[in-house]
């Protein structure tokens, strides 16, 4: 059983490897995004030394590491699931003695490992060469960040699976998937760190799961959160991971009862 899951992961990794040319442009995309946000924030900082608890140097590091984290945790599980539901191939999954959601998560992980090795690491090296990124020196920051990165992946994939499974209920969930993408990019702190939002908005974002995807690991990596604080933010991630399991399982259970294949 477990080896089957490992195989799903391995096969996805190998599939990605076969199409790796696409990822060279991916590195360019992410570097360019970092570049543009870097210059925009430079202009915003102007002469002021600190905004929302971030120094200009920390902001550069935060932008670089946030985009690179996204290069790792990003996946299209929502689209894959929605496509399976729409063309009816999900019916086959029902009769397999293996949990479909787990299969998808493992495939996502296979893709994640691929993205980590061929997109995030090379992209980060280029970003360090091009922009004044300050790498943390404390080993706890590195270990904490890597562990948190894994949870970013888990939480983001859970949200993707939930959005994808929504296709069971709304037939065509293209709009929902787009909305999810926007919400994740904005509320996770990728575009603006959460501490820079006005008080009430950051208060709202702090009770939502999205900050666990980008903002919290980014805070550890930039050294804004250190020492025992790392355990606290990791705790928030574990909490959201556990909480999100619930809707994922519930929707999957409910969905199986209302399969409605549209052609295929």
């Amino acid at each position, binding site marked *: 059983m477990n080896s089957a899951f490992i195989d799903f992961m391995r096969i996805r990794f190998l599939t990605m490897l076969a199409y790796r040319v696409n990822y060279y442009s991916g590195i360019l995309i992410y570097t360019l995004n970092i570049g543009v946000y870097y210059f925009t924030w430079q202009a915003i900082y*102007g002469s002021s030394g600190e905004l929302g608890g971030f120094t200009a140097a920390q902001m550069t590091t935060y932008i670089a590491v946030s985009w690179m984290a996204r290069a790792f945790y990003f996946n299209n599980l929502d689209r894959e699931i929605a496509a399976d539901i729409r063309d009816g191939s999900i019916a086959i999954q029902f009769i397999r003695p293996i949990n479909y959601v787990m299969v998808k998560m493992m495939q996502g992980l296979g893709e994640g490992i691929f993205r980590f090795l061929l997109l995030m690491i090379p992209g980060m090296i280029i970003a360090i060469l091009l922009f004044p990124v300050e790498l943390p020196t404390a080993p706890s920051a590195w270990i904490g960040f890597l562990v948190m990165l894994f949870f970013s992946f888990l939480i983001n994939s859970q949200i993707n699976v939930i959005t994808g499974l929504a296709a069971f209920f*709304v037939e065509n969930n293209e709009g929902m998937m787009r909305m999810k993408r926007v919400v994740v990019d904005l509320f996770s702190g990728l575009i*603006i760190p959460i501490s820079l939002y006005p008080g009430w908005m950051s208060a709202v974002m702090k009770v939502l799961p999205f900050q666990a995807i980008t903002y919290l690991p980014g805070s550890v990596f930039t050294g804004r959160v250190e020492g025992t604080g790392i355990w606290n933010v990791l705790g928030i991630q574990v909490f959201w991971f556990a909480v999100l399991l619930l809707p994922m399982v519930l929707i999957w259970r409910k969905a199986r009862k209302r399969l409605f294949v549209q052609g295929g």
Partner: protein
Amino acid sequence: MYYMGLIWEYLKNYMKTRLTYRADFWVEILSDLLFQATNLIFIFVVFRHTDNLGGWSESEVLFVYGYFMVPYGIFSCFINLWGFSERYIVKGEMDRILTRPAHNLFQILLENVDPPALVGSFIGLIIMIFSGAEIGLVLEWWHIPALIILALSSVMIYAGIYTTLTSLSFYSDAPTGILPLMYNIQGYGRYPVTIYNRAIQVLLTWIIPFAFVGIYPAALFLERSEMHRMALLTPVMGLVFGSVGLLLWNYGVKRYRGAGS
């Protein structure tokens, strides 16, 4: 005339398919608006921490964003080549298109029209009016014809860039990674390009000229004289990039061979 009739038929068809998924139609409009809102939120949050961005005030940046939304809405409505390679080449639908008399690109664009995107253009106009009033801009006779010409030129630039990139799929099998790249970059043309370093400025002006879909044309209305020359260049850039896109496309179609599916 023949083409006008086709547009009408395709729009009728569009409405029929969309009404099958009525709820999604509204969700899509909502998600488009939310996407625009994220950019506005970015501007609002940023200006809570600074009073200018490279010498441009909050109202000016908002105005530029309003302008940016107008051609962007028209572009997203009429020029949607997102899944081209997948749908037309891999699945072989291009064969069907090529057996018909109307120009192939025209048919493909019409099959993928997305009228809800136009809502964005209207909101862009509203943003322009409000932020323009805040700056104290007065409507002059040439504003409206200028807006129409500039917005259409901006649409041509988008069209040129995206048809060029999409026509690459006639030459190579999977260039899909490039489209998301453009998608990410196009938004940067709406910030004052002078804040970027020289390389990015040149990139956004001459190579993938997204500065001409936002900051340069908007500068004309804002009376930022330093960018006037660039603003007046917008129609030229539109013509150049639009023609290059169409030429490469036509040339690519000639090389097209069915995928055999």
